[in-house]
Structures are given as C-alpha cells and as structure tokens.
C-alpha cells in the first residue's frame, strides 16, 4: 500500500471527521433540494454557495494531514515529508467537481455553454480549495479559523455581495477563471512541496481537529508552549486575589464543605475575577448586539449559557488529590453551578437594565433594505440561565471525556432550542408562566443533581472509560 493510500485512510478512520461529513452531507442535501422550495435565480449569487464547501474541504483535508505531519515519528517515515501536496491534490478534483455541478442547471444556457460554465466553476472552486489548503498550512492552528468561516461568509455575501460578483465572473469570464485556477494550483503545488515545509511542522505544538472541544488536550497544548502561558498570565491573578480567596477558605473548618467550596471557586474563577475589567467590553458589546437582535435575544442567552457550561471547569474529574472525597466533589460542584447560574442571572438582569438605558440613545439604521432598531431586552431572560445551566452542566459532565459526543449533544440541543424558539414560540413570554418556570427549575436542578450524584458515586473519576 502506498504512503498516500495509508494517509487517505485517515479520512474514514478518524471518527471525529464523521460528524463533519454528516454536516457537509446535510449542507449538500440542502443545496440540492432548495430549488424544490424556491427556484434558484441566475445572477443572484445562489449558484456559487457551494464554494464554501470547497473552502471547508480544503481546510479539513490539509489539517487532517498536517496533524499527522506534526508528529515527530511522521517526519522520519520514508516519503512522508512530501505526501502533503499529493494528499491535498487527491481531493482537489472531486471536491471542485461536486461543488460545480449546480451550474449544470444554470438557466438561459444551451448545453455546450453549460459545459463551458461548468469548467469555469470547476476552476473557481479549485482556486478556493487550494487557497484554503495553503492558508491551512501557513496559519498556525488554522482549525480555529473554521469557526469564523460562517461569519466571513455572511459578511462577504451580506455586506459586500461577493457571491453575486463571483457568479458573474464564473459565468462571464470563463477563460480568466480557468487561467487563475491553473496558476493557483501550480502555485499551491509548489508551496505545499517546498523545501523545509515538513521540518517547520515537525513536533510543533498543535491543536488537532477535535481538540478544540477537549480541555485536557488544550491544557497539554498550553503546557507545550510555556512562553505563551507566561505571557498570557503575566499579570494574573492580581496580588489581591489569592489572599481574598484564601481568607474565605480559612473561615471554615478544614474538613467542612465551605472550605472546599471557596477552594474550588478560587481554582476555577481566580483568573476571571482578577481580570474582571476584561469582561466589561464583551458586556457592552453583548448588550448592543442583543438589543438589535430584539426578540431573538432569548435564543442568544440560551447559546451563551451552553457555551458557558462547556467552558467552565468543574472539580469532579481531577487527579490532583486534595483531601476532599467523592462527597465533597459532589457538594462543591453543585454549589459552584448554583453560583454560576445566579451570576449569569444577574448578568442577564444587568444587560436588560443597560439595554433599557441604551434604548433611549441607540439609533435605528438600515442595511440592504433591512431595518434594525434597538429595543429593550426583556428582564425575564434572566430566568434562562437558572433553568438551562443545570441541563447544560449535566450534559457537559456526562460527555466530559467524549468531546465528539459533547459536540453532537450541543448541536442537537441547539437545534431543539432554535426549533422551539422560532417554530412554536416567538417570544420569551413562555417563561412568564409561573408553573412552567417552577417546573423547569425543579426538573433542571433535579436532573443535574441526579447526574452529578451518579457520576460522583458510581463513576471512575479519572482516565479510562470512566464509568461502571
């Protein structure tokens, strides 16, 4: 078996990629069936939407191979140093072709013209594909950029109409597009096979594709770059933080739950408390953003709560032995999540209050015919973190060591919330009903407590598969 074939096998052997394939398949399905709902319009940029798939594919295929190339053993394997460009270009033709087939249905063209436009679209997609591959190779931890691609796409199409421009170029400048496609491919071929490229990646600390959801891997990545860690924490925590937390710990008995609670709060919150002023800017930005979102602010708070739960460290799974047993881990984690929920609730109230003040001064404006006006955020959104944080925390605890499933659960949860929000209810008024609020609170915290209790008393708390 050739080195290239062995490496290509990673594309189906890595289970983390299966989720991506599922998402891409859904997107392709959406692109295929969308004309059944509403026919595509020529010249409106709708035929070049698949170019985003070419970009994502270029990124992913390159990142998958770079992840292998960054391992020192791969550098020493015969033929591995030059396999990257072969690997990337293996995917180039099929991806570009798949992304171009929509042009076969381009209206107003006869068949020979359609074939020519198809070729043009092929080279356009090829250009974007290789550009993404070169970017993924050249930018450190390019996997993080994947998260920004939807925003880049929205800005490029919504504000600059680049999709319309691209479609016009593809249909109207076939020769130029083809030349650009060939030249960019040659440039990418040379770039990805340059002297010393493999050496520059060998043994470099690397955030892998699914590592962004794996806290342990991220910590390992940070440890591999001590200078970055030192720079990041240069001024934190501030000198007052340690005595503040330690003095609170010392108010309680050595074996008392209070000491463990404050200790855990110190461990998990010291950096945030120390840099509290860094939170002010996001606070104002969120207020303005939510104010303009209007009724959708409730959904935004749901997402904010989920993101908070996933980013939060809880002292359940830890090998660093301090003298608290499983019972202490349970009580400490429970009260930490209660504290978080209350704090988020207060933040939501503060955002609501600030939005009321801002609503008197924030201007209304219009973009591309869409009107945006600032409205006061309903103070009732404050109940969202209190209800949802225990659910989100329970999911995070269950899938703590399974980032793939955590991501899948998050996506499913988001779909459910978005469906409920836009499909059934259009307002946060659902939370007005006292019976619903009380019922949700009891259910959420009950589920969380049951899950936490199960984990603390029945599961292994470090390493391995983790459960009985």
């Amino acid at each position, binding site marked *: 078996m050739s080195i290239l074939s062995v490496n290509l096998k990673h594309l189906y052997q890595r289970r983390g990629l299966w989720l991506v394939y599922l998402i891409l398949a859904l997107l392709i399905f959406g692109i295929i069936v969308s004309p059944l709902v509403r026919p595509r319009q020529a010249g409106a940029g709708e035929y070049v939407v698949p170019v985003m798939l070419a970009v994502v594919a270029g990124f992913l295929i390159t990142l998958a191979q770079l992840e292998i190339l960054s391992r020192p053993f791969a550098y020493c394997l015969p033929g591995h140093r030059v396999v990257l460009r072969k690997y990337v270009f293996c995917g180039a033709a099929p991806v570009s072709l798949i992304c171009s087939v929509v042009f076969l249905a381009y209206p107003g063209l006869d068949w020979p013209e359609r074939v020519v436009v198809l070729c043009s679209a092929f080279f356009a997609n090829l250009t974007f594909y290789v550009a993404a591959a070169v970017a993924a190779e050249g930018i450190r931890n390019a996997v993080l950029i994947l998260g920004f691609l939807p925003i880049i796409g929205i800005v490029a199409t919504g504000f600059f109409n680049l999709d319309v421009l691209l479609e016009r170029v593809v249909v109207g400048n076939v020769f130029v597009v083809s030349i650009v496609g060939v030249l960019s491919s040659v440039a990418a071929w040379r770039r990805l096979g340059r002297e010393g490229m493999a050496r520059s990646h060998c043994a470099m600390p690397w955030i892998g594709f699914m590592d962004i959801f794996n806290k342990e891997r991220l910590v390992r990545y940070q*440890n591999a770059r001590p200078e970055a860690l030192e720079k990041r*924490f240069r001024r934190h925590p501030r000198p007052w933080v340690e005595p503040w937390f330690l003095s609170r710990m010392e108010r309680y008995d050595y074996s008392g739950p209070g000491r463990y609670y404050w*200790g855990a709060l110190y461990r998990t919150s010291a950096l945030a408390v120390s840099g509290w002023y860094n939170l002010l800017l996001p606070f104002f930005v969120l207020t303005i953003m939510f104010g303009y979102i209007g009724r959708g602010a409730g959904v935004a708070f749901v997402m904010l709560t989920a993101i908070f739960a996933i980013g939060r460290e809880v002292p359940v799974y830890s090998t660093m032995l301090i003298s608290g*047993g499983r019972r202490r881990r349970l009580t400490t984690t429970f009260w930490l999540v209660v504290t978080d929920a209350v704090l988020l609730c207060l933040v939501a109230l503060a955002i609501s209050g600030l939005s009321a003040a801002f609503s008197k001064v924030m201007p209304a404006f219009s973009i591309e015919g869409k009107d945006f006006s600032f409205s006061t955020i309903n103070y009732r959104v404050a109940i969202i973190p209190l209800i949802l944080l225990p659910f989100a925390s329970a999911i995070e605890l269950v899938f703590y060591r399974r980032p793939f499933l955590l991501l899948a659960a998050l996506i499913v949860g988001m779909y459910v919330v978005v469906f409920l929000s836009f499909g059934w209810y259009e307002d946060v008024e659902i939370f007005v009903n006292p019976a619903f609020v009380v019922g949700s609170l009891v259910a959420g915290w009950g589920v969380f407590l049951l899950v936490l209790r199960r984990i603390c008393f029945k599961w292994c708390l470090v390493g391995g598969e983790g459960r009985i």
Partner: protein
Amino acid sequence: MIGANPIVQMNGLSKRFGKIQALDGTSLDIYPGRIIGLLGANGAGKSTLLRHIIGLYLPDSGQCMTFGCDAAKLGPEELGRIGYVHQEGELLDWMKAGQLIRYVSAYYPNWNRELEEKYIADYDISTDARVGSLSPGQRQKLAILLAIGFEPELLILDEPAAALDPVMRANFLDLLLGFIQDESRTIIISSHILSDIEKVVDHVVIMKQGWILLDCGFDELRERFSRVRVSALSGQLPSELPFVNVLDSKRSKGQAILTVENCSGEELQRQAESLNCRIDIQPLPLEDIYRIVVS
C-alpha cells in the same frame, strides 16, 4: 509494625476498561511501616490498583478498604492521611508554584512549613515560576512536595521519579528514607527504574495483566534468588553441573555463572567442594529478579 492491622485491604478486586481487564481478582494487604515497590510492565494494572486505594476508581467487583474505610467513601479525614503523586502530573498551570503550595496547604491542618521550606531550598524550586512553564522535572518535584508537605501516613507514588535527573533521583530516594523513619508511615512506589527503587524498598509486589504474581519481602526475595559464579580450582568444569533449581546458566572456559532459586549457601558450597570448585554467591539485582518472575 509486625502484627499491626493492614492500612489497605484489597479483596478480589476486579476492574475492566472495555476489552481490557485491568485488575483480575486482585487481593493485597498493605501493612504500615513498609516501603512497597509496585512493579510491572506498562498496562500491568499498577496505576489502576493505586487509584482504587484512594477511591478515584471504583471496582467492578471486590472491595478496597483504606484506613478501615471503603475507598469509595473516603472523606477529608482519611484522605488527609494520604499523599499521592500521579502519573498525569495534573497541577494548576496558571498559578505560580508558591501560590499552588499555599493553595494545597490550605486543605491540610498539619502542613509542615519547615519541611516545605527545606524541600524548596534543597530541591531548588522556584516559587515565583508559573507552574505551566516548569520543566517536567520541576513539575515532578513540585508534585512530590505537595504530596509530602502534610506528612501523610500513606504516600502513594505513581512513577514519581521518571522526569528527574540521576542526581535528583538519588536525593529523592534519600528523602523517602528520611520520610519512612517514622515507623507509622507507609510508601507505595510504582516505578520502572528498578535500580533506584531496590535501594529503598523492603517489600515487592509484581503485577502482570491485572494479576499479582508476587507479593513478598525484598530480603526474602533476595534470599530466594541468587547468582552463583562457579570456578574450577584446577582444569575444566565438569560438563554436567549437579546443582538443582538452576534457572539460567552461562559457561565460559573454567567457570559458569548460574542463576538459582531456593538454594541455601551451605548446600551450594558442599556441592561445589565435591566438584573441586570454588563458588561465589551474590544476591540478584531486582531487575533480574523481576525479569525471572515475569517470564
């Protein structure tokens, strides 16, 4: 401490991770005042066994009692008597070393500041350095300080010296010997550097694939296995040597080197004299004993 009750009692402990049987009906008693060397290949079940003692793992079947309490139910009072240095080296990377020491010490009423200061000076720990930026060796030293600072009765060391240089390893062994001067203390040390731990252990437990192959005193083990150099006093050695329980033999010209089990010195001496040979009996290094037991 002969006659004392065991501080750890494991009875029929089994643990499976997916297809891997990490522990398979393991039973072991650990008595106070011992330094126990826990040996075994990678994946033999050493770390799993140690994690059961402090209740981080729960068994599929069987029971582990630590200080007379079910390990799963260990509370602050019992865990306050146990120090643990673990393989993963999980520490709070954003803290400075000094902050981490103060943080951990806040959980222990009997934290020994004198010991802490002495250790920091002897082992050259920079308390102002960020934990995350410490070298693996420095992290290991810090982890050891956090485990011994409150002078625990039971000290569990899971690959504690792997990241230390030879000089630091020697200092570390001295530290352990000093620590065990108090007869109520017990140390369980898991390591692959057998030449180091044979200097300090008085009891050996050897594991393989979740089983305990051997559990006995180190002196007893050294008496059981020995290396015998047999030299002919004149001429060549006989082609057949009449020694029994020979595990391995190597011959060269007028001498042979035998590895024997359960042979008394007097018996070997008597047989050598009958062959007109001279013998030199030496205890076997732990590494060789381990190899014999495991194979």
